[in-house]
């Protein structure tokens, strides 16, 4: 089968296969049966014609022998001898009587003649139409039958001669000629063929050629294949008008041949009818078989289809689907297994969901605890810090006059550190909150957001010369507050690290690298050592000393957390003392 038919449904393939198989089998069997039937019919026909010819030959032989005997008696009759010897002058009545004894008066198909050797007819008894004319040629021997000849278009004559001798051993003085007419008529034919069986044709004629007759009319000689002779009578196939089967035999000792003939078509007609009937039955068998196969394949593919649909609906979420496949066969078992599996899947899903709910609950609890923790931290850590800072101040303000430079310096250190700690607490808290807070995603106009931050940064910077340029910025998708904080941190950093430059130059823009929009903040500030670039975004990691640039080292960690929570990346390029550029990607709006 071609590739394509192999991809047909089982529902089609099975009946197709079965019907092809059935057709093949049926054709083979029909063919064989038909061949058998034909062969049988033909061989039976051959047998029939052979038998028929044999019988007719026997009959002819007997009647011929009988006639010869009679003729022998006749020619041995002294009276007849005398008649012939006298040239027909004496013993006429005697001769007639003798003839009459052989052939009674009411035999219409016979004429008997007496001829002398000089070609004179001495006596004729019978129909003169049969009389030999001219004188018959002397036959080679007594009792020899002549070939048929046609007289006046309609008479078929053949004769037998017997020699008349002067005495038992004397010279030939004359001959007797018995002319027989072959009775050819519809009635004759009917009578004869009725005996053989109405479908058989009987043909008689000269073995060597015309004339021939089918007992009803005169006809041309059958083809030579028909007249082929064998030692024993054998049926032959030949064409005489249409295909025939015929058995031919010469009547021994005569030039006459006899053929029993059957029309091949007629012989095979019943088998053709048989073939037609069988073909009809075969077609019915194929049809029934195909229908049966189709029904069986349906009984397989229907449950399979149900299973497929059920599987698909389970796959798309409806876990309660089950199939109903009755029966204990393979399909029934498949259906049961399927149902069991579906039940398992459903249970597993329910279990999983329960687990998820559990875990989520546990997680929420942890989150809530963390929230509480942050709350405590922000409150309870700040209060003492405030006290330390405040009272250190009070010390300085109220008692500074009595302190030396060193004491004041020490107080300054206390002051500075408490301030830092406060900043650290704030930074840590916002960093931690960032991780827990839910993203409120919306379309964010980055250009406008950056502009707002830039204004604030400029305000903070005061009179310091600061050039900030903002290029076109495509909108992004994300949590506006978080993004604002990240941008703020980056710009704050840029501003901080360009403090020693005049002017400090900050550039905010974006690049398109094909797949994503990349935002960047570039400055001409202190830069950083690219060898430590990997530490840039770590919490509390700083690449500069606190004396140079203040900061807790959380700003960039916050930026990274914000960006990665949005599914983006952040990285930086820079060189010591030659500025830095910070890149980050965000999902597009």
């Amino acid at each position, binding site marked *: 089968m071609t590739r394509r038919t192999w991809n047909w449904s089982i529902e089609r393939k099975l009946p197709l296969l079965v019907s092809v198989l059935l057709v093949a089998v049926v054709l083979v069997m029909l063919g064989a049966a038909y061949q058998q039937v034909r062969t049988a019919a033909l061989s039976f026909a051959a047998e029939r014609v052979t038998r028929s010819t044999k019988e007719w030959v026997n009959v002819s032989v007997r009647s011929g022998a009988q006639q010869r005997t009679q003729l022998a008696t006749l020619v041995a009759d002294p009276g007849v001898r005398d008649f012939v010897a006298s040239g027909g002058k004496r013993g006429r009545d005697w001769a007639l009587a003798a003839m009459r004894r052989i052939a009674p008066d009411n035999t219409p198909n016979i004429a008997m003649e007496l001829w002398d050797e000089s070609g004179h007819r001495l006596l004729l008894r019978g129909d003169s139409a049969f009389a030999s004319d001219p004188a018959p040629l002397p036959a080679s021997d007594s009792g020899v039958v002549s070939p048929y000849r046609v007289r006046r278009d309609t008479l078929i004559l053949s004769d037998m001669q017997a020699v008349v001798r002067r005495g038992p051993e004397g010279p030939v003085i004359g001959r007797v000629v018995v002319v027989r007419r072959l009775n050819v008529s519809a009635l004759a034919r009917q009578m004869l063929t009725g005996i053989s069986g109405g479908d058989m044709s009987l043909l008689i004629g000269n073995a060597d050629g015309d004339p021939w007759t089918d007992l009803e009319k005169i006809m041309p000689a059958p083809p030579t294949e028909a007249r082929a002779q064998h030692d024993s009578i054998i049926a032959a196939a030949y064409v005489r008008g249409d295909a025939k089967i015929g058995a031919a035999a010469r009547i021994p000792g005569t030039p006459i041949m006899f053929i029993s003939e059957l029309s091949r078509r007629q012989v095979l007609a019943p088998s053709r009818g048989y073939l037609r009937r069988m073909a009809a039955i075969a077609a019915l068998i194929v049809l029934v078989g195909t229908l049966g196969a189709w029904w069986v394949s349906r009984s397989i593919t229907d449950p399979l289809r149900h299973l497929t649909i059920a599987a698909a609906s389970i796959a798309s979420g409806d876990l309660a689907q089950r199939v109903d496949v009755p029966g204990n066969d393979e399909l029934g078992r498949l259906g049961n297994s399927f149902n069991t599996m579906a039940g398992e899947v459903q249970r597993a899903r329910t279990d999983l969901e329960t687990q998820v709910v559990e875990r989520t609950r546990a997680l929420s609890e942890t989150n809530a605890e963390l929230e509480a923790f942050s709350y405590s931290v922000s409150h309870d850590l700040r*209060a003492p810090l*405030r*006290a330390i*800072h*405040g009272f250190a101040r*009070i010390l300085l303000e109220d008692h500074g006059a009595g302190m030396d430079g060193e004491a004041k310096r020490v107080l300054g250190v206390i002051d500075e550190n408490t301030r830092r700690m406060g900043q650290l607490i704030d930074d840590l808290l916002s960093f931690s909150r960032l991780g827990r807070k839910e993203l409120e995603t919306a379309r964010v106009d980055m250009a406008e957001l950056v502009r707002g931050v830039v204004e604030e940064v400029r305000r903070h910077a005061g009179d310091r010369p600061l050039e900030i340029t903002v290029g076109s910025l495509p909108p992004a998708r994300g949590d506006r507050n978080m993004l604002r904080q990240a941008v703020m941190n980056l710009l704050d950093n840029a501003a901080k690290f360009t403090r020693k430059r005049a002017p400090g130059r900050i550039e905010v823009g974006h690049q398109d690298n094909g797949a994503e929009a990349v935002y960047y903040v570039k400055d001409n500030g202190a830069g950083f050592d690219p060898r430590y670039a990997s530490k840039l975004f770590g919490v509390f990691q700083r690449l500069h000393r606190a004396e140079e640039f203040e900061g807790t080292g959380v700003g960039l960690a916050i930026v990274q957390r914000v960006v990665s929570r949005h599914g983006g990346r952040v990285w930086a390029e820079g060189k010591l003392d030659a500025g830095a550029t910070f890149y980050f990607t965000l999902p597009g709006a």
Partner: protein
Amino acid sequence: MPQPHEVEILLVEDNPSDAELTLRALKQRNLANQVFVCHDGAEALEFFFGDGSHALREIGVVPKVILLDLKLPKVDGLEVLRRLKEEARTKSIPVVVLTSSREEPDIARAYRLGANSYIVKPVDFEAFARAVSDVGLYWLLLNHPPR
């Protein structure tokens, strides 16, 4: 400490250091004379609604502004706020929530309960002092209280 009827600023603060720093800041702006301090929420409620030495009922004079810390022992700051804003007598006294907490829920709740202002106490003393004195100045001198 002034008499109850002389109180212009009521400070409800449990942390003595914070209280001291606050007073100091107010003093620097000459606002410290009329500051009364309650050390927890119960005292604050006593001051307004209770009997005894703090009874205000007879006097009918209320402070010009209340500086309220949220984290208070005995009665929580938000509870005090709620009570204050429920009572007709005290409803219209401006309450400034002054607290370390920058947590969103606290801020939202405070405003919902009727706080007039919410200020986060910075660690930095200077900033703290400035915030406190600014607040004091505003509510005492600039703002016109309802009468």
